[in-house]
């Protein structure tokens, strides 16, 4: 008898200890930080892998948030003012035919390793990126030759007049890094420096350099010789934390453990907005959601059917319910705010009667067929959209089978040899690698020999010609190019090649004490740590 009570007693004591310890949690969250502590900004990044590609020639993924603080480009793009801002290049000129671009570099810019940035580094960086051909390297595809004119002047010769300034501002694969460092380390390993980067190294000109990296957090510290200097208020250190769970990120934000979160579900945004310490920054983004319709598989090979379901889509409910108004219905393929967006294009509206009419014309008065829609599993917004759409199509007698799939299988399915085996509707986000409508139109609506991203399998020579023509002149006459893109989009909308669903806003939840933050949609989810500071 007594022995059991002894065990019981131990259990009770254990519980008591646990509660005493937990009672101490409150003390763990200091309101004020210790005096000698460096000023730190912490960014909660809701993904499991902060850095996927360390090599600046290969970047194409989550690491964009880190790369744009370690490294810099020749120029940066400001979408609000529609302006190119000089960064590593002070000024540049372009020849009349648009084929020769000359960049005049800033003097006295240091890399993290100590070397000075010169034209050699620029030539080396871009050529290496082109040679490796990974990630977004294709953006440099029109560059025929790069010449070092003198220590601070670089000349690019193109074979097609593309807008090189926009290209050079890209968030991926446009960074300038140290030729000396890369080559030296490359020699040690017997490669082009890739392995050295992949081990977790960087050599850029950016304001922050790498201090430490683990899977769960990346710590950066101030680069004292940064060319802009450190006058004014700046953070000493920047930390990017990997927080895959939205509820954890939200809790950390409310507790003051992080200063800003990249992405929270809309319900949490609403809840968190009520907190007087938190504010939400809303910015129009260049990200939109499209639903590609399989134009090679009946019944969607019939234009009338495609138009019918375009009318059946519940645009307003989706925007109202999923985004609580923080998005707008897409007009054409190019998101609002980016040049090439066409305000005059026709836009489908939610109209079940019209949909029914069109279906009847097409020979399906009561629907009676089944469609398969694939979306990226784990994405709440896509899932809800699909469910709302399903309910609407049911009203027309169309059964929508929705399937959440991880990206690879979803894409593989779309590339099946027989069009009949593929999905009917492919839901996907898109955002540009550099601010140019070509990213959408060329990748997704131009005919392709092998299926990559033209997931409507749409081949229209007329549209192809418009796109090709526009891409040739975009560097010289942007307005004319925009006009051509407009015409192309009209065709796409009329043919109902895809469902143009929404242009979304980026909603960033941040602490009110964090100042100086503006969200630049040309660099999705990037916080330029140099520009922000804390003010209680």
């Amino acid at each position, binding site marked *: 008898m007594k022995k059991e009570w002894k065990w019981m007693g131990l259990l009770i004591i254990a519980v008591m200890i646990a509660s005493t310890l937990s009672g101490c949690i409150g003390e763990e969250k200091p309101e004020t930080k210790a005096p000698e502590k460096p000023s730190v900004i912490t960014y909660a990044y809701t993904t499991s892998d902060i850095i996927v590609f360390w090599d600046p020639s290969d970047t194409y993924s989550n690491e964009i948030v880190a790369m744009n603080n370690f490294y810099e480009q020749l120029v940066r793009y400001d979408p609000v003012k529609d302006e190119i801002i000089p960064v590593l290049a002070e000024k540049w000129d372009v020849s009349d035919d648009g084929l020769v671009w000359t960049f005049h570099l800033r003097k006295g810019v240091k890399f993290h390793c100590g070397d000075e940035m010169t034209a050699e580094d620029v030539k080396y960086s871009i050529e290496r990126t082109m040679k490796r051909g990974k990630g977004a390297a294709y953006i440099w595809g029109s560059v025929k030759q790069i010449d070092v004119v003198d220590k601070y002047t670089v000349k690019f010769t193109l074979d097609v007049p593309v807008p090189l300034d926009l290209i050079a501002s890209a968030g991926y694969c446009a960074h300038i890094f140290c030729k000396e460092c890369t080559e030296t380390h490359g020699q040690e390993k017997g490669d082009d420096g890739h392995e050295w980067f992949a081990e977790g190294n960087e050599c850029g000109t950016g304001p922050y350099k790498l201090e430490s990296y683990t*899977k769960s957090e990346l710590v950066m510290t101030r680069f004292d010789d940064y060319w802009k200097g450190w006058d004014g208020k700046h953070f000493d250190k920047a930390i990017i934390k990997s927080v895959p769970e939205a509820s954890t990120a939200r809790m950390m934000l409310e507790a003051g453990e992080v200063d800003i979160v990249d992405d929270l579900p809309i319900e949490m945004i609403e809840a968190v907005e009520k907190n007087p310490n938190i504010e939400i920054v809303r910015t129009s983004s260049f990200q939109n959601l499209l639903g590609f319709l399989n134009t090679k598989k009946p019944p969607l090979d019939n234009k009338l059917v495609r138009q019918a379901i375009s009318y059946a889509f519940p645009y307003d409910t989706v925007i109202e319910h999923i985004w609580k108004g923080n998005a707008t219905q897409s007009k054409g393929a190019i998101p609002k705010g980016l040049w090439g967006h066409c305000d005059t294009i026709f836009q489908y509206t939610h109209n079940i009667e019209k949909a029914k009419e069109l279906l009847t014309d097409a020979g399906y008065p009561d629907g009676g067929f089944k469609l398969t829609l694939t979306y990226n599993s784990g994405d709440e917004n896509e899932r809800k959209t699909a469910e709302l759409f399903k309910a609407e199509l049911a009203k027309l007698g169309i059964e929508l089978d929705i399937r959440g799939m991880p990206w690879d299988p979803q894409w593989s399915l779309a590339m099946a040899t027989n069009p009949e085996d593929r999905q009917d509707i492919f839901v996907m986000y898109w955002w540009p690698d550099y601010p140019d409508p070509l990213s959408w139109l060329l990748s997704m609506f131009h005919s392709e020999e092998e299926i990559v991203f033209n997931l409507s399998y749409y081949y229209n020579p007329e549209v192809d010609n418009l796109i090709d023509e526009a891409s040739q002149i975009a560097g010289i006459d942007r307005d004319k190019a925009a006009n051509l893109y407009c015409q192309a989009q009209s065709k796409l909308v009329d043919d109902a090649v895809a469902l143009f669903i929404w242009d979304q806003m980026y909603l960033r939840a941040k602490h009110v004490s964090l100042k100086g933050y503006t969200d630049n949609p040309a660099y999705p989810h990037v916080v330029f740590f140099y520009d922000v500071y804390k003010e209680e």
Partner: protein
Amino acid sequence: MKIQHYIAKRLVLVAFVLFGISVVTFFIARVVPSEPAARWIGLHATAEQIAAARIELGLDKPLYIQYCVYMKNLFQGDWGISIVTHQPVLKDIKEYLPASLELIIVGMIIAVVIGIFFGVLSATRKDKSIDHICRFISIGGVSLPTFWLGIMLQLIFFREMGILPLSGRIDPTLMFTSPLTKVTGFYILDSIITGNWAAFKSSLVHIILPALTLSVYPMGLVTRMTRSSLIEVLNEDYIRVAKAYGISDRLIRYKYALKNAISPTITVLALCFAYTLTSTFLIEAVFNWPGLGGYTSRAILAMDYPAIMGVTLLVATFYVLINLLVDLIHAFIDPRIVLG
């Protein structure tokens, strides 16, 4: 059959089983219509890039050659590169393993201690109301959906009562005030070794809910196992003799009976360990615990075949070896089993 023969035979079996597992897993992961090359490259890749990546990853060769290449590399210590993280799989595993192990060990300790306690309580008061309550608790324990229990505990202890943290292994602000130097990767152990009291408190507090959630299922099994085997043993003649001789109840219970009842419990514990290895998928998802379970889930969802292979082989090896160990212990205790 001698013990050595038995061990040898079993080891051969283990090798065969692991080989079979590697083949099955490899084919599952590769037969799928999936495009790992695309995932490797990045989301907006061009056709040429994908083709190049396919060659780079060796995906253009026939399947059985890919398998042989993989296995050859495996034995040389190269477990491949994860398609998702772009890091060597072995490195990823080393990074995530300690977190899961720490969780499992703490959870199992809780399960065993409380499980045995309840089991003994239940057996010695058979068919009384306490027995029924304990049996209900143990069956309830194995019936609880792990992920749901985790969520409920978070709701109660974090949301409503605010006394325990929501997720994670340690309080993040400690990185500045009292950073923890990692020695073994087990936070609780490391904080003791380095004398970091704040980190010790924090990591202990953070592990409570996940470990508790993890322990419930094994606890149920242990309770039931202890109860039934103890009942059996208590009915044995030699116990009755001991009672007749006037040896105290307590002594009988713990010294004689429990020792004999432990044997089936060990079997159960091995099963539990195996179960908890996979149960960590769910718990790590709920508590944002940076362990192997979460890594594996992501790998499976992305069809990251090197990672899937690596983790499966690792965990299966553990699993199979533990089963072997348990059988050996049984053989040691009762050699008759081996001869059978």
